C-alpha cells in the first residue's frame, strides 16, 4: 500500500473512534435514543476488511454497524443524522443506529437479530454466483451469533453450494455480557472445521492483518473456491451498548486490551516507525476528524425529523390498487378508523 492509502486507513479508524465517542456524548444528552452499540476497539476490522474489497462487493453486518457504514464511505453526516432519527439519515430516520444501510455502496445493512442476517448474506452470494457478477459477499457477525441455528444453516449452505461469501467473526469474546467460554462449547475455528470450510485466525486489532486475510478470502471466492471463515480476535473498549454498565469484565482485562489499541498501534508500528508521518501530521488528521464529526453533529441536530406523511412510504414497493381504503389495512380510513393519515387523533 502506498503512503496515502495507509494514512487513509488510519484516518478512517480515527474517524470511527471519534464518531463513536461523540455519539456516546449525544446519547448522554438524549439526542440519540434506544440502543447504541459502539465500535470502539474493533475499528481495524471494518476498515481493514473494506479496504480489501471491491466497491461493488456486497457487505452485510450486524447491529454494531457505524464503523462499517463509515468505512464503506457513508458520510459522518448521514450516519449521525440517522442516529438522531432525522430525515437526512441513511434511512431517513426509519432504521436508527442498528439498521444503517447504503445500497448504492453495496452496503446492505445492519441487522439486529443475532444471526438473522447470515442466510441473506449467503443469498446475496448465491445471486452473484447465479448472475456471474464476480462479486464477493462479506458477512460480519459477533462471536455470540455462532451458536444460533441460522449460523449453522448458513455455514452448511455456503459450503454446500460453494458460495462466494466471507464470514467474518468479530470475536470480541463476549456475547453481550456472556464470555466466550460460557456460551460456546468449542473453540471458534472448530466451528468452521465442522463444515470443512477454509478458516483463519486473525489479529483483529491489526488493520493490515485484517486486510490481508480478507484479500486472501476474497481471492479464493473469486477463484471459485467458495466460502471462508475468518475469526478476528478483538475486544470492545466500551460495554455492549450504551445501556450496559459493563461490570462483568474486569478493569484489568480491559486495560490489558487497551494496550493493543488498533489505532495507536497502527500509528506507532507502521506510520511513525516507517517515517511515513510526523506527530504533527497525526495531530492534523485528528483535528480534521474532530471537525468532521462536529460538523456531522451540527448537521444532524439541524436536520428535520422525517415528515409524518412519509410514514406509509415503501410499505410496498409495488402498491396495490385499492389498499388505501379500509379497515386495519394500509392507510387507516378517515371515517370509522381512529387515526387520520396525518397521525392526529
Amino acid at each position, binding site marked *: 500500500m502506498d503512503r496515502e492509502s495507509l494514512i487513509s486507513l488510519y484516518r478512517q479508524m480515527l474517524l470511527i473512534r471519534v464518531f463513536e465517542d461523540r455519539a456516546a456524548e449525544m446519547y448522554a444528552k438524549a439526542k440519540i435514543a434506544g440502543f447504541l452499540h459502539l465500535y470502539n476497539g474493533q475499528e481495524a476490522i471494518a476498515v481493514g476488511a473494506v479496504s480489501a474489497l471491491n466497491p461493488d462487493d*456486497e457487505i*452485510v453486518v450486524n447491529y454494531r454497524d457505524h464503523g462499517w457504514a463509515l468505512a464503506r464511505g457513508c458520510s459522518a453526516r448521514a450516519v449521525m443524522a440517522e442516529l438522531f432519527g432525522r430525515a437526512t439519515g441513511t*434511512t*431517513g430516520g*426509519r*432504521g436508527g443506529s442498528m*439498521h444503517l*444501510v*447504503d*445500497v*448504492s455502496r453495496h452496503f*446492505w*445493512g445492519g*441487522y439486529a*437479530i443475532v444471526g*438473522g*442476517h*447470515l*442466510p*441473506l*448474506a*449467503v*443469498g*446475496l*452470494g*448465491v*445471486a*452473484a454466483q*447465479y*448472475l456471474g457478477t464476480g462479486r464477493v459477499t462479506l458477512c460480519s457477525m459477533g462471536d455470540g451469533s455462532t451458536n444460533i*441455528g*441460522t449460523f449453522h*444453516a*448458513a455455514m*452448511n*449452505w455456503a459450503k*454446500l453450494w460453494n458460495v462466494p461469501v466471507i464470514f467474518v467473526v468479530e470475536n470480541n469474546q463476549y456475547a453481550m455480557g456472556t464470555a466466550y467460554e460460557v456460551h460456546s462449547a468449542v473453540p471458534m475455528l472448530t466451528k468452521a472445521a465442522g463444515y470443512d470450510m477454509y478458516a483463519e485466525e486473525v489479529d483483529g486489532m491489526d488493520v493490515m492483518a485484517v486486510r490481508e486475510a480478507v484479500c486472501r478470502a476474497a481471492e479464493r471466492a473469486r477463484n471459485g473456491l467458495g466460502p471462508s471463515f475468518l475469526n478476528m480476535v478483538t475486544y470492545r473498549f466500551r460495554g455492549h451498548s450504551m445501556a450496559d454498565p459493563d461490570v462483568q469484565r474486569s478493569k484489568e482485562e480491559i486495560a490489558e486490551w487497551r494496550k493493543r489499541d488498533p489505532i495507536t498501534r497502527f500509528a506507532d508500528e507502521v506510520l511513525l516507525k516507517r517515517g511515513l508521518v510526523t506527530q504533527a501530521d497525526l495531530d492534523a488528521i485528528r483535528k480534521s476528524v474532530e471537525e468532521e464529526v462536529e460538523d456531522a453533529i451540527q448537521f444532524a441536530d439541524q436536520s428535520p425529523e422525517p415528515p409524518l406523511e412519509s410514514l406509509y*412510504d*415503501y*410499505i*410496498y*414497493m*409495488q402498491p*396495490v*390498487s*385499492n*389498499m388505501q*381504503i*379500509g*379497515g*386495519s*389495512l*394500509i392507510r387507516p*380510513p378517515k*371515517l*370509522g*378508523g381512529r387515526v387520520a393519515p396525518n397521525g392526529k387523533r
Partner: protein
Amino acid sequence: MPEITYREALKRALREEMQRDPTVVIWGEDVVAYAGGGAYGVTAGLAKEFPGRVRDTPIAEEAIVGVGLGAAMGGLRPVCEIMTVNFTLVAWDQIVNHVAKQSHMFNGQIKVPMVIRTPNGHGRTAATHSQNFDAWFASIPSLKVVAPATPYDAKGLLKTAIRDDDPVIFLEHLQLYSTRGEVPDEEYLIPIGEADYKRRGKDLSIITWGRMTIESLKAARILAEEGIDVEIVDLRTLRPLDVPTILESVRKTNRAIVVEEGWRTGGLGAEIAATIQEQAFNYLDAPVARVAGLEVPMPYARNLERATIPFAEDVVEAARAMMRNEY
C-alpha cells in the same frame, strides 16, 4: 375450457414465469428428487426443464427463506417452497424480522421480489402438521398474502406474485391440490388485492378464502334448495384486504358470515367482522357471525379431526340460524 388440477395450475404458472424470466428460481426441500418433484408434486419435472434453476435445499426453513431473501435482494426472483405451513414457524424470524422489514425500514433502498409458497392443510397428521396461520401472516405490514381457492385463481395469482416486487406469502392447501377447475390455455394474470364473487346472491354474504371457499360453495347449493340465496366473496388476497368489495357485498345483503379454517380467537374473521361493523354498521340486519376451526391442537383420531375443522354443514347451519334471526 380445459379442466386441470390446482397442482397442475401452479406448475404451469411456475413454468411460464421461468420461461419468461431467467432470474426466477425454485428452491425448497425435496423440490427436485423426491417423488419426482415436490412433496406434493407441484414442481415435478421442472428441474429437468430448467437445469440449475430448481434446487433441493437442506431441511432448514430459516435458511430457505433467508437465502431466498438475500437472492431476491441480489437480483433474483426466488420462489421458495416450504413443505407445509407448519414449518414456516422455523422461519418466522426470517419472515417477520427480515423479509417483511426490508423495504420500509431501509426506506425503499431494498426490494424483495420473492414468493414463499406453502400449503395449509390437514389429513390425519395431528397437531404439529395440521395448522393454519393465515391470520398471523395477514397481520404483518409489508407482506402480501394470497390464498387461492381454485385452479384458475392459483395460476393467475402465482404468476402475479412472481412478478411482484414485494414479498408474497402464497398459501396453498393440501385438500385443494387435486381439485379440478377450468383454466384457459391463454396467459392471464390476477391482481393481488382483489376479491372475487364466487357466487352472487341477495340474502347474506359469506366472506371466506382458500379451502373454505369450496366448502362455502357446497353450502350455498344446499341453502339454495331451502330458498336461502347466499353471496360468496372469495378474498383471494388476505393482505392487503379488499375491504371495498367486502363492504359492497354486505351493504347489499345486510348480513355477513365470515368463514375461516383457522382458530377463531385472533383470526382474520375477527378483523373482518370488526371492519364490517366499523364501516357498515347501519347496513347490518344481524350481528356478523363467524364459522371457524375449533380451538384445540388438532387431534389425530378421524372423528376428532373432522369435528375440529369447519365443513359445508357448519356454514349451512350458521346461515340457517342467521336467516331465522337466531343469534
